[in-house]
């Protein structure tokens, strides 16, 4: 099964890329854009039919490798 993991910078950590995208969108005329934050999408393909196990595995992978807890947070989508 496939699990989607989102890794993003913790609030408060400067997101230079998000800011650059925000500026670019405003320059294109999208004045309604009041903020942009960026992060990573990681789609894991897991050989396990059990959704619970899969989520646990993904969480472990995030803790160990996929996110750096000093500045990053993660979220696992279904």
């Amino acid at each position: 099964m496939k699990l989607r993991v989102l890794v993003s910078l913790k609030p408060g950590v400067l997101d230079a890329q998000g800011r650059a995208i925000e500026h670019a969108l405003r320059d294109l005329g999208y004045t309604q854009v009041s903020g942009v934050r960026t992060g990573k999408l990681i789609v894991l393909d897991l050989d396990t039919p059990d959704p619970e196990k899969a989520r646990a595995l993904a969480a472990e992978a995030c803790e160990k490798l996929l996110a750096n807890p000093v500045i990053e947070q993660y979220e696992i989508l279904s």
Partner: protein
Amino acid sequence: MSAARVGVLVFPGSLDDRDMLRGLELCGAEAQFLWHKDARLPESLDGIGVPGGFSYGDYLRCGAMARFSPVMRAVLEFAQSGKPVLGVCNGFQILCEAGLLPGVLVRNRDLKYVCQDVRVAVEDPGKFRAELPPGRGLVMPVKHGEGAYVPDPDHKPRVAFRYVGGSPNGSTDDIAGVANAAGNVVGLMPHPEHATDPLLGSSDGGALLRSFLAACVAARTRR
């Protein structure tokens, strides 16, 4: 006293490994490469250099994957025993990811790779102080895309080097390099090994490498 015996780590994607080896040799070291798959370090090693480059392609986060390679477990023990470890650029990033140095390095403020000479001032380079009195200025090149230092909120870093006249990358408080609490592990973004030959620019990096080697010899005699 015999020359310091140092190892230079080689990960897949290490790029400045030869340059670091050559720089250390120019400064009088007996240097050899250490392969990432080797879980054991050679006997009687005095110090370890972690070179720049794009280990594991810098994918995910710089240094994130190198940390898990077999050689890094040995490096961890080596550092914990008080022996000197120097990380440059990607090496600095690896040491941060591995928890040997506090903090993390993120994308440059302007999102672009930057290659240029910078001036840093020495502050507290831990045990690497033989030729690095506080306040000494050094001109060395930086070349990186992710060199903005972000301190760990729970760990105030021991600042080894600070950029003079503003950072090229948006580093917090213009921090260019840090030392661990014990002072035997130092990491920095500028490249001392690319500043060891006046023909190629500056030779200020030699002072840093020689200070690292002096710390290596000192740690050996103490043992």
